[in-house]
């Protein structure tokens, strides 16, 4: 589970559908990214990062202890 992405989305008070609409994806795709069942393209990662006002590192970088 990509908890960082989920927390950032919730902190912005956005539903999966809201975020999906902003980045031009489907709700299912956002859900699958959060569950780490789909690897998004760099373009989609950038779109999500911009929509949530975060950097790619803050949303997608994994440290060793994660």
């Amino acid at each position, binding site marked *: 589970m990509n908890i960082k992405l989920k927390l950032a989305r919730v902190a912005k008070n956005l539903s999966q559908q809201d975020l999906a609409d902003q980045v*031009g*994806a*489907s709700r299912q*795709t956002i859900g*699958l990214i959060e569950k780490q069942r*789909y690897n*998004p393209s760099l*373009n989609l990662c950038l779109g999500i990062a911009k929509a949530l006002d975060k950097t790619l590192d803050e949303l997608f970088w994994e440290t060793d202890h994660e």
Partner: protein
Amino acid sequence: MSKTFMNMDERNVQVAGRVIAIMYLITILALNAAVIYRQIVLGQDFHDMEDIASILTFNSLFLISALLYFGAVTIRNLKISTLLMGYVGFVVLGSLFTYVKYNVFGDANLSLAQLLDKLFIIASICGLIVIFFTLFSILGKRRIDKALDD
């Protein structure tokens, strides 16, 4: 970020592409199986299924050409020796298939002399195939190089 055709996002396109590729493979295999079934079990003449054979042949030709053109297969350096080896391979395979087609599945038993007569046709068709593939790989390489230059 805009959605594509039919509101598909990148994941939908990816999944659809994968499913289409698998279904394409199954269709081609099923067509091959149908040809073999009709020849061996039903005993039909191979002339009765030239339509399927044509579809399979042109499909394979265009599939390989498209793979080369769109960069699915990257050929770094086209060497004359590689092309020649490919050509010889095609001619050998073509001769083998023609021999099997006439002597195993067909009624006419081709002699070696008759096969040699057909060798000219096989060599010409194989030459065209190699030129066709080479042309598409060059065009594909140019297309990517142009995109890199822009």
